[in-house]
């Protein structure tokens, strides 16, 4: 059938797999995100900490190059667990900023334009729709966090040789599990905000508010009560403590790390509940 025929017929060709259909949502959302050159440039900049980390490791293990550059030969001595912990933070921060930039319009735009019935009238359900939107953030945040983290860990293990990687497996574990936990929490939280707040600047403000104002409130609770129970609502401290425990370092929270895990799990569950509540009425009542 050609366009000039101006006719219509049934489709009889092959269909894509039903299981991966949610990735269509992801594909189009990603294309929209990267349509902005400014964002693309920012996205590239977000890899800078990891690239610097890689360079640092490479330089540390290349005595000849260090000598030629006139840098101290003991540069390698700083490659302790602390180096990897600091690098973790410098990867997590840009990831958070990317989530802040991208997430506000992911669901709200569809709700504002009543697009949800169009999506859900197709062979895709609400869960897959959210999964597709969440995959946008996962795909954007993963390369700059745990993927680069594991690459750095792998490069260090390669240069060190022997059983360094076995002795320091916690570093790799922290990069993988810590970043994935952070991505899961921040993705669900920002999607929940996107579902409930239509205006982008307000949505961004709310996300910042939840992260930082809640942290201040938690500090106040800790100060007033003289306990660490405020940490239960301190998301930043919760993720920090989880990551530190994965690194095998002392945690900043006064609570056992299992409570920090519970804080993250509760924030994610609450976000899922909020998304579920918001998306359901748009199927029911317009």
């Amino acid at each position, binding site marked *: 059938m050609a366009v000039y025929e101006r006719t219509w017929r049934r489709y009889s060709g092959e269909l894509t797999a039903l299981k991966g259909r949610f990735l*269509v949502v992801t594909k189009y959302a990603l294309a929209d995100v990267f349509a902005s050159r400014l964002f693309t440039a920012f996205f590239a900049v977000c890899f800078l900490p990891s690239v610097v980390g890689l360079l640092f490791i490479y330089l540390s293990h290349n005595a000849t190059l260090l000598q030629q550059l006139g840098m101290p030969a003991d540069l390698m001595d700083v490659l302790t667990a602390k180096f990897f912990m600091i690098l973790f933070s410098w990867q997590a921060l840009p990831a958070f900023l990317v989530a802040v930039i991208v997430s506000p319009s992911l669901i709200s735009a569809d709700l504002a334009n009543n697009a949800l019935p*169009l999506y859900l009238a197709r062979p895709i359900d609400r869960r897959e729709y959210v999964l597709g939107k969440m995959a946008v953030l996962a795909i954007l945040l993963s390369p700059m966090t745990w993927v680069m983290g594991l690459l750095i860990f792998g490069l260090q293990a390669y240069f060190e040789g022997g059983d360094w990687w076995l002795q320091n497996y916690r570093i790799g574990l922290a990069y993988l599990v810590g970043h994935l936990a952070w991505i899961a929490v921040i993705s669900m939280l920002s999607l929940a905000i996107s579902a409930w707040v239509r205006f982008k600047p307000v949505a961004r403000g709310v996300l910042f508010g939840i992260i930082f104002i809640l942290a201040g409130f938690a500090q106040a609770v800790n100060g007033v009560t003289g306990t660490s129970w405020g940490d239960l609502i301190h998301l930043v401290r919760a993720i920090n403590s989880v990551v530190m425990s994965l690194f095998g370092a002392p945690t900043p929270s006064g609570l056992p790390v299992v409570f920090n895990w519970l804080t993250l799990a509760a924030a994610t569950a609450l976000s899922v509940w909020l998304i579920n509540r918001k998306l359901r009425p748009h199927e029911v009542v317009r």
Partner: protein
Amino acid sequence: MSQAETASSPAIGLDGLTVDLGGRPILVDLCASLRGRAIGLLGPNGAGKTTLLRTLLGFFPPTAGSADVLGFSLAGQGKQLRAQIGYMPENDAFVAGMTAVRFVRLMAELSGLPPEPALERAHETLFYVGLGEARYRKLGTFSTGMKQMVKLAQALVHGPQLLMLDEPTNGLDPPARTRMLELVADIRDRGEAHILLSSHLLGDVEMLCDEVMILKNGRIAAICDLEAERKANRSFVELELQAPNEAFSAELTKLGCELAVHESGRMKLVLPEGRTIRDLYTVADRLDVGIRHIDLKRDSLQDIFLRAMEDDNGGV
């Protein structure tokens, strides 16, 4: 579904379908077996037309009873079912910031078409609905009529077996309305898809549908096979002559027609079996009688609808 299956099995089967929303019954014990190529869903505002469409799409779970669409059960086969449906919602619905062709392609891909065929069909479908020249324009810049057409395009692009149209002529000016009705009629006449048309415009439904289900307060008030009605009423004729002519009346009586003649030259008659309108023209030609107006009188959808609305117990 093959042509044979299409003819034998109902497009939509409702078996005691009941839907409650917010604790309030919206659809109550709907039982029907709809086989028409184009099925009209009629009813006053709040009758439950849109709720029924959405229930058939799997948006609302039935409180009781069940429904089959194209042989797929609502319970457990929702995705397979939705893959065969094209849905055109009543209100504005689109994805922000997209061009028409990208939007329609997205919808095609969501229905399972690989990217290349999806793009190809998006172009074809937009040309089919008359938006070929506007396909690279952002949807936000479209007029109401164009938005209706692009909604039709997204419902058609994947070649569904059942096209659900919720008030497709809403907000359209007369030319756009005519164009929309022509398109729907064309799709119906191709015989490749069933059409479920929800509307409160009797004219649209009468023009396009061969079967009608009338809803009232969430219950079925009437189900009517319009095609059968048309056939059953084919012999009733209203006729107006340029001048009264007794010879013409006598000839019609000889043909076996039952007739009532008005002084003005108007007459109402029932053609006997085996006689057609052509016989009336033949007699008029032989007697040199001028026929000013001739009309096949039938029980209109409006009559059926009004009767259904008056009948509190429903008239299934």
